[in-house]
C-alpha cells in the first residue's frame, strides 16, 4: 500500500509545490487578484466552465482541428519521408528544403497563410499541418535509411518483391523513427494550433478562448484554458503514443520499456 503511494506522491509533489508558491504570491504579491487569481479561483472557474460546457466545446473544436491537421501532416509527411528514403532524386531534392524549413517556427508563416486563405479554419488547419509535417518527414526519412540491410537481404532471399519488401520490411523496420516523428509532429501541431487560433480568429477553440478572455481581464479563464491545453497535450502523449509504443516497439524489443 505504501509502496504504491510513493510514485503517486512523487508525481504530484512538484504541482503541489508550485500551487503553494502560486497561492502565496497571489496573496502576498504585487498583483491585484483580478490579474493574479488564487488557485481556488482558477479551480472554481475551471469547474464552472466545464459544467456550463464552455471549456469542453472549445477544447473539442481545437481537438477536431488538431486531428484534421495532424492526419494531413501524418499522411503526407510519412509518404514524403518514405519517398525520400527510397529514391535518390527525391532525397536530393527535398532534403535541403525540409532541413532548412524544419527550424523555422510555424507561426512565422501565419500572416502569409491568413493573406492567402483568409481567416477561420482553413488557414489554421493548413498552417498546423504544414508546421507539423517537418519533423515527420525528416524522421521517417531517417527511419527508412536506418532499416537494416540484413532484413532486406533476408527478405529478398525469401522471394520478397519490391512491394512486399516495402510493406513487410521497410515500413515496420522504420517504425521506431516514424513514431518519433509523429510524436514530435503532434507536439508541434498542438503548440502551433493554440497560437494560430488567436491569429486566424476562429469562432471556437482554446486559443481563442484565452485570447478573448484578455479583453475582460478574465485571467482565471485564461489560466483554466492553459490548464486544459497542458492536460490534453499530456493525455495525447500518455494515452496515444505511449500506448502505441507499448503495443509495438516495446513488445518487439526495438525500444526499452
Amino acid at each position: 500500500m505504501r509502496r504504491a503511494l510513493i510514485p503517486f506522491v512523487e508525481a504530484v509533489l512538484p504541482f503541489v509545490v508550485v500551487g503553494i508558491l502560486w497561492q502565496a504570491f497571489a496573496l502576498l504579491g504585487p498583483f491585484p487578484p483580478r490579474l493574479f487569481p488564487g488557485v481556488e479561483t482558477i479551480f472554481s472557474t475551471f469547474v464552472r466552465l466545464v459544467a456550463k460546457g464552455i471549456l469542453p466545446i472549445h477544447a473539442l473544436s481545437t481537438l477536431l482541428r488538431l486531428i484534421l491537421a495532424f492526419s494531413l501532416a501524418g499522411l503526407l509527411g510519412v509518404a514524403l519521408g518514405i519517398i525520400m528514403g527510397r529514391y535518390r532524386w527525391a532525397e536530393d531534392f527535398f532534403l535541403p528544403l525540409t532541413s532548412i524549413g524544419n527550424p523555422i517556427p510555424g507561426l512565422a508563416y501565419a500572416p502569409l497563410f491568413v493573406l492567402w486563405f483568409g481567416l477561420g479554419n482553413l488557414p489554421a488547419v493548413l498552417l498546423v499541418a504544414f508546421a507539423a509535417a517537418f519533423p515527420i518527414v525528416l524522421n521517417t526519412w531517417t527511419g527508412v535509411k536506418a532499416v537494416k540491410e540484413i532484413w532486406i537481404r533476408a527478405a529478398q532471399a525469401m522471394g520478397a518483391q519490391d512491394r512486399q519488401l516495402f510493406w513487410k520490411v521497410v515500413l515496420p523496420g522504420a517504425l521506431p523513427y516514424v513514431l518519433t516523428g509523429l510524436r514530435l509532429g503532434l507536439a508541434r501541431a498542438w503548440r502551433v494550433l493554440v497560437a494560430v487560433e488567436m491569429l486566424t480568429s476562429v469562432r471556437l477553440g482554446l486559443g481563442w478562448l484565452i485570447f478573448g478572455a484578455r479583453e475582460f481581464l478574465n485571467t482565471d479563464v485564461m489560466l483554466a484554458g492553459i490548464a486544459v491545453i497542458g492536460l490534453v497535450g499530456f493525455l495525447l502523449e500518455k494515452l496515444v503514443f505511449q500506448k502505441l509504443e507499448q503495443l509495438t516497439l516495446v513488445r518487439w524489443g526495438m525500444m526499452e520499456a
Partner: protein
Amino acid sequence: MHQIELRNIALEYASTENHVTALQDVSFSVEASEFLCVVGQSGCGKTTMLNIVAGFLKPTKGEILIGGKAVTGKGLDRGVVFQDFAQLFPWRTAQRNVEFGLEMKGISKEERAEIALRFLKLVNLEKFARSYPHELSGGMQQRVAIARALAYNPAVLLMDEPFAALDALTREEMQRFLVDVWRETKKTVIYVTHNVAEAVYLADRIIVFSPHPGTVKAQVKIALPRPRDTLSVEFLNYQKEVVYHIVERK
C-alpha cells in the same frame, strides 16, 4: 549432374580508389545432399563467394549452375542463414518469421501456420512460436533463422558462420543439432566458417580458400562416420591436415 557448380568465378570490388580482387578463378561443385564446408583465413573471400551463390552479388566473370541451370539472381531454391542474429524481423514472432517465405509464395494462412510449426518443432522451438526474437537467446534465434530458411523448402542451404557469435558450449550443441536437421531434411549445404574443428565436425568435404585473391587451394574429404568424436585421433589428423592447407605458403 552436380547440384551446384561454380565455374571460374571471379569478383572484383571496384570502389573509387582501389580495386580489390576478392575472388579469382574459383571453381568447385557440390553434390545433392552434400554438406560442404568452406574454410580460410579472414578476408579470403568466403562471404563474397556465398553472396554470389545466394544471388546478392553478380560475379565479374564465370557462372553458377544450380541443378544444371545457370542462375543469375536470388531464388527460392536457396535458403540463406547469416551470422548476424539481427537477421530475424523483430516485429514478427518466431512463427511469423518462419512463415515469411511461405507468405511471399502466397500460401494460405492455415497452411503457413502448420508448416511453420512443423519446422519450429524440427529446431525444438515449438513452445516459443509466439515469442518475439528479443525474447529468445542467441542460439534460439539462430535456430529460428534455420527454420525460416528451411520452411519454404529450398534445395540448398547457404550458411555464413551462423554460430560464430555463440559461446563455445552453445555452438557445440548447435553443431550437433545442425547435423541432425541436415540428415533429416537432406538439404545440400554450403557452410562457411573459419573454425577448422567445426568444419571437420560438420562436413562431408572441406574446401580450403587461400587469400589475395581468394581462390580454391585444396579439398579434403572427411571420411568419418557420424556422430563424430572430436577427440579421436582421426578427427585430430583431419584437423591438422586442413590447418596445414590453410597456413601453407603457395
